[in-house]
């Protein structure tokens, strides 16, 4: 079955994570994403490990182009004439120096959509200063680190590249919006997103709340709320989550064997920090007497609980496999490898992970030939260094 973005071509000049992830999300929907890498270094993200690079560049084809070489730039511009989207996550200023800005590209191809996924946004003092960014910095300046704290744990960044991932999602959303709009207007446009903006949007309610109340969020402790929190069991932690505790708390206390804790109204008792702490300790003691699975069997679905799972436990969850959140994909060596599937299930135009990352320049000839370049032109561009000298040497040896 066709994917939703079948026939859409994305030129993907991205490195590391925010950019590659945004384009990979479009590849999951069937877009023809062409990853452009400098012939010498390649995407610097290649050194961050197999899972990192392969996953962030899943479903893409690869072409090596030296954009500082006149011939390489010419190849890029001709490819841009065939493309729907040019997506990059270069620092502000780099695209200008390369001469590959939206005005340049749209003059040749008015339908092209240019998406810049920057660190701090394309406007403002730090865009003018061409300031760079990384995930941890956006989590810091974007306020996420300041709220990722409890009375027991110091402030710390979320130890997955959350800002990059969310930034990638937001840029994919922006590109889709521009694609849809182009169907009506026939014209492309420039779309800008950033790590910083995505972090702020992620916390839209909390930051607005702070601006309206004049107060920052205050950290809570493990024992601040016995109805919501992590409890250790005989074999691992479990998360208890209670929406409207006045309704379910009395029954919970009965079943758990501490009926006296049900006296009074939960929402009133919860205003008393000492009551909360004392109650947390009582609940904690009982949870220790059985395993996570036993508690799940006894209490769920009547009460809202979930095991706190580590990654290898997630990997065994039949629910994750049933929904395609985990899938197997054929690796280059022919073996099937487990990986994460697309989070969106579309009934008529299904999403899929079709392959892992391409090698640097793996599809250069294939892409150029199908884009209207003649074999003689490819040879000529290669000789002029468009694909870098390394690739030219390898091709000569192969011939």
């Amino acid at each position, binding site marked *: 079955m066709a994917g*939703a*973005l079948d026939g859409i071509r994305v030129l993907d000049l991205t490195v590391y994570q925010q950019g590659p992830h945004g384009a990979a999300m479009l590849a999951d*929907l069937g877009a023809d994403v062409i990853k452009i890498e400098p012939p010498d270094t390649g995407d610097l993200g290649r050194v961050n490990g197999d*899972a990192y690079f392969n996953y962030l560049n899943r479903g893409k084809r690869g072409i090596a182009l030296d954009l500082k070489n006149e011939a390489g730039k010419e190849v890029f511009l001709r490819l841009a004439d065939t493309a729907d989207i040019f997506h990059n996550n270069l620092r502000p200023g780099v695209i200008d120096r390369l001469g590959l800005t939206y005005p340049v590209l749209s003059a040749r191809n008015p339908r092209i959509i240019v998406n810049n996924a920057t660190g701090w946004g394309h406007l*403002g003092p730090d*865009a003018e200063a061409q300031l760079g*960014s990384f995930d*941890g*910095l956006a989590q810091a300046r974007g306020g996420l680190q300041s*709220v990722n704290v*409890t009375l*027991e744990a110091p402030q*710390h960044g*979320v130890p*997955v590249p959350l800002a990059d*991932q969310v930034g990638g*999602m*937001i840029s994919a*959303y922006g590109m*889709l919006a*521009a694609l*849809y*709009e182009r*169907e009506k207007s026939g014209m492309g446009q*420039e779309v*800008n997103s*950033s790590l*910083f*903006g995505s972090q*702020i*949007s*992620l916390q839209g*309610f909390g*930051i607005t709340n*702070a*601006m*309206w109340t004049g107060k920052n*969020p205050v950290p809570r402790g493990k024992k601040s709320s016995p109805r*919501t929190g*992590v409890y250790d069991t005989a074999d691992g932690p479990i*998360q208890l*989550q209670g929406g409207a505790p006045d309704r379910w708390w009395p029954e919970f206390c009965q079943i758990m064997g501490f009926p006296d804790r049900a006296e009074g109204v939960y929402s009133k008792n919860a205003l008393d920090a000492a009551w909360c702490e004392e109650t947390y300790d009582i609940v904690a003691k009982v949870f220790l007497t059985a395993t996570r699975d036993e508690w799940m069997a006894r209490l769920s*679905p009547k009460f809202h609980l*979930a095991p*706190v799972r*580590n*990654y290898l436990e*997630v990997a065994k969850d*039949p629910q*994750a496999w*049933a*929904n395609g959140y985990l899938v197997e994909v054929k690796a280059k060596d022919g073996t099937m490898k*487990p990986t*994460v599937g697309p*989070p*969106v*299930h*579309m*009934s*008529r135009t299904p999403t899929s992970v079709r392959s892992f990352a391409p090698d640097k320049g793996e599809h250069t000839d294939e892409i150029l030939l199908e884009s209207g370049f003649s074999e003689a032109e490819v040879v000529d561009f290669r000789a002029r260094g468009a694909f870098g000298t390394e690739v030219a040497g390898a091709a000569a040896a192969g011939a």
Partner: protein
Amino acid sequence: MAMALEGVRILDLSVFQQGTHASAMLADLGADVIKIESYDTPDPGRASGGDPAPNGIRPYFAILNRNKRGIALDLKNPVGRETFLKLIETADIFHSNMRMGVLERMNLTYDVVKERNPRIIFSQATGWGHLGPDAEAHLGSVDGLAQARGGLLSINGTKESGPHNVPLSLADQVGGMISAFGMMAALWEREKSGVGQEVNTSLYGSQIALQNFNITGAMWNQKNPELRGKDEARPHWGTYVCADGGLLMVAGTTPDRWWKEFCEALGAPECGEGTYSKNQVDTAWCVQTRARLGQSFATKTRDEWMSILSPTFLVQPVRKYLEIAEDPQAWANGYLTKIAWGEGELPIVGLPVHMSRTPGSVRSLAPEVGQHTEEVLLEAGWSWEEIAAMREAGAFGRG
């Protein structure tokens, strides 16, 4: 200027956060999002998120339902149901985040609504996905449970504190982004095929996708990431406390290139001896070096260190929400914006995406229950008399 999703109509039967955030993201781009509630059963999110701000508004509900219109419909009342199905004929998307089983009980499945409008896109943002054992069990979910079962909780915290959730509704927010992405992909595809489809997303799938390469890496290496001790982080990536108590985040890849110079700038040249990538494998070296640099950071304020270190080194202040509210970079890019309110203006989080030709915007806060019932129905061709009769029949709920 026209907006990207102008002319797109969404019937929004969502509550609390994941669902409401997704449709709000489409409303930001100009879609006509009609929030459906009954006077008897309004969105429980109206009472969520803590006390109202001093301006009298509850930010949680106001933000998550920005830019929407509100209509009151009791879908269990036959007249209310028929009104809903007639509105389906005018809509592009029917979006909900009900627990699995609820729409079946209401007899509002995809099969039923596409009977009335084959172009309709049917978007469901569930807790655990629409397939698998927990979909069959109609298991509910909320943010904290998805963070727990999705593995995010297990990696967040320190060895000393144990795991804790990211204390904001991260799973809901990310789930909403993914659902918006899915809806737009289906909208775009419909331009080609002329037919709608069912789009399913969930809190759980979005959490797994957020950590996609981390989980893939764990599956490939058969190794879970472990919580670090609070002082064990490698010194080139993490936060330091400055003289004024402010935190500074240091984040740099390829430290071998800049580390020596960085230590010199901090007045601790001894920490720069040797090769960073070799030193960092020694935990004792990391702890010691972090402590020594900590002494340096403690001698100057955060702003002083910023001006000394940035932009040569990639550092940023760890900002609290109210500090973000003062960041000119956030205002320049529209990540923070203002909307008209009474005689004055209210600050609010804006859009993470900037579109050059069809900009999105925040135009209004959440509607009251049924605020636009008459307006929406009159536009769709009902007469005042018909609306009065519908009200009499209980189509909007009794309240």
